[in-house]
């Protein structure tokens, strides 16, 4: 009897904790969804479940004459996609070389990458800003993409190298004996086997520019070049409260697709991370 009571108490407490956490997690999200349907611009007097729900704020965002939101969205997608493509290509090439070849400078290269991955690339903020000014790459998407790709190389190279190291070397050796060249081994044997880690790196290098604020806000100056992070901040920072409902609608439109994408890839994501974490 005592055992059963103990179990009851334990489970009840657990459910209570879970319920409390669920409220804490879900409340802000529901609040922003509710705000986005509230009529009027200001939040004072708004309700979580509005009396007169309206999609006016969504309409406003989609109206290119009234807001730059769609442009920002397109900019963000463009920058993230290009960063992802270039990063995956460069990281695959570098990681493959480091994993499979023994060449002079390899060891120093690996250590350099290890140190570089620890310094976040926005630490050199001032330099990036000044260099952007000097090279006229400031306020261009090209400059931003180059910085993102360069910053993505060291860490992701280590991640991918760790994975490639687990693919048996006998595979490429036997292919070599069969007369396959360097490129053939790379494209037809190693890359197909490395698909899982390529997916993880693609996801990482897509998400990182999407959520970045600091580099984008340093490099991008004109409104029509902004990414979503910079644009949304601009929207709320200028006249907070006055445009909050519009901002809320904008947030929902970002959070929803990303969250759905994320939750469906979640398993993949976590296993890739733990594998990378324990292996280095």
């Amino acid at each position: 009897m005592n055992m059963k009571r103990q179990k009851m108490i334990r489970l009840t407490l657990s459910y209570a904790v879970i319920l409390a956490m669920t409220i804490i997690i879900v409340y802000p999200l529901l609040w922003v969804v509710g705000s986005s349907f509230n009529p009027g611009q200001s939040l004072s007097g708004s309700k979580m479940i509005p009396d007169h729900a309206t999609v006016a704020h969504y309409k406003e965002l989609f109206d290119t004459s009234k807001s730059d939101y769609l442009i920002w969205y397109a900019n963000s997608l463009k920058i993230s996609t290009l960063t992802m493509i270039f990063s995956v290509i460069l990281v695959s090439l570098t990681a493959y070389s480091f994993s499979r070849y023994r060449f002079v400078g390899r060891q120093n290269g690996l250590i350099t990458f290890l140190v570089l991955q620890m310094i976040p690339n926005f630490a050199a903020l001032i330099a990036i800003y000044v260099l952007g000014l000097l090279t006229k790459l400031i306020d261009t998407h090209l400059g931003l993409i180059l910085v993102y790709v360069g910053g993505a190389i060291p860490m992701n190279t280590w991640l991918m190298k760790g994975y490639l190291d687990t693919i048996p070397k006998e595979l490429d050796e036997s292919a070599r004996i069969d007369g396959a060249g360097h490129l053939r081994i790379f494209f037809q044997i190693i890359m197909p086997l490395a698909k899982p880690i390529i997916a993880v790196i693609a996801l990482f290098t897509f998400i990182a520019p999407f959520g970045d604020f600091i580099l984008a806000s340093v490099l991008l100056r004109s409104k029509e070049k902004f990414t979503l992070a910079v644009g949304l901040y601009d929207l709320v920072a200028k006249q907070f409260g006055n445009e909050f409902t519009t901002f809320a609608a904008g947030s929902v439109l970002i959070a929803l697709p990303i969250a759905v994408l994320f939750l469906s890839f979640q398993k993949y994501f976590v296993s890739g991370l733990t594998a990378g974490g324990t292996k280095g």
Partner: protein
Amino acid sequence: METSMYRSSHRKIALCLSIVPGLGQLYNRQYVKGAFFLILAISYYIVFADLLDIGLWGIVTLGEVIGRDHSIFLLVEGILAVIILVFGLGVYAFNLYDAYKNGQQRDLGLNISSLREQYHVLIDSGFPYLMISPGFILLVFVVVFPIIFVVLLAFTNYDLYHSPPAKLVDWVGFQNFIDLVKLDLWRKTFVNVLAWTIVWTFGATTLQIALGIFLAIIVNQKDLKGKAIIRTIFILPWAVPAFVSILIFSGMFNESFGVINKTILASLGIDPIDWMTDPFWTKVALILIQSWLGFPFIFAMTTGVLQAIPDELYEAAIVDGATAWQKFTKITLPLVLYAVAPILITQYTFNFNNFNIIYLFNGGGPAVSGQNAGATDILISWIYRLTMTSAQYSKAAAITLLLSLVVVSVALWQFRKTKSFKEEDMM
């Protein structure tokens, strides 16, 4: 002993001739290679002579005549010149080495490999370099170059009052670092920002880790129903982009219309709190928000580890008469901590540099009199403020240098202990 094996001294002659790149190879009768080195050397000289001349002069003097010389351009050219010089010296050293090696082969009476064979050797041994070079070159220009630039900038007086083209920038040695310690304004700000950065890093990170592990263990109880849906809900804060959540929170905490003061605290009968203007409460809000944002990651990791712990361990413990608490402290916790430890340290370094939350929540504010950083500015957001709003470039660079030293030493210490680095066959 060894010299007696050589029948001639081609190697020495080739080495000496190679002081002019290519001549040694020509002497070794490797005409194509020799011509290649010779042409390479000449074109290197023609293309880069000016840059090397101006760059090396510029990096030493940072310009002498106001109006004609732009110190920062000169600094950039100087770094470029040094990088190109290092590359050039590398190729030059290879040229000497190659001439010596082939001369040695001749001395030993061996045939020197033909151009065709050399071509194949080159392709084989050059392939990894070929694959690395695109990434490496990009890395040099967007990562390494800025780092060198910042390091050098920390030793100049580049700021609003020494800003080209109207003024020249000068080398000032360690003056920036001395100022940070000696000038009252800077010392006070630096100490305050550093103290808060440390409190922030340890407070926020430890809280999010503890919360994540705690919840994972609770949800992982065998007889708990609805695990899948609970886990999905608990992952949600991770799934929403952080910048969106932070901006939402800054709306919720807003003092004039925020739902926390107006609705939640009001319904509990608590007076409104100055979340945005009182330094203490802003800090509390930041740590709470970061826990909300950061715990799902730890939660997901820990859940993965918990599911991998074999049931036999617990069964054996029950047979031995262990209590629930003993099972937790002797089995669960050690295994979890062991598995997630490497990730935990990256969480600390992440929060140490967590610019987004500080800046997007309240811009580092509220402002504090007598210092040039806001009350919740951490080092990285202070650097941002110094660079973007007050143009204190050299001070910002000096602080960046200090910050990077901390991050790198912590991270190196961590990675020295991880398995992969030990197992790495470092040739």
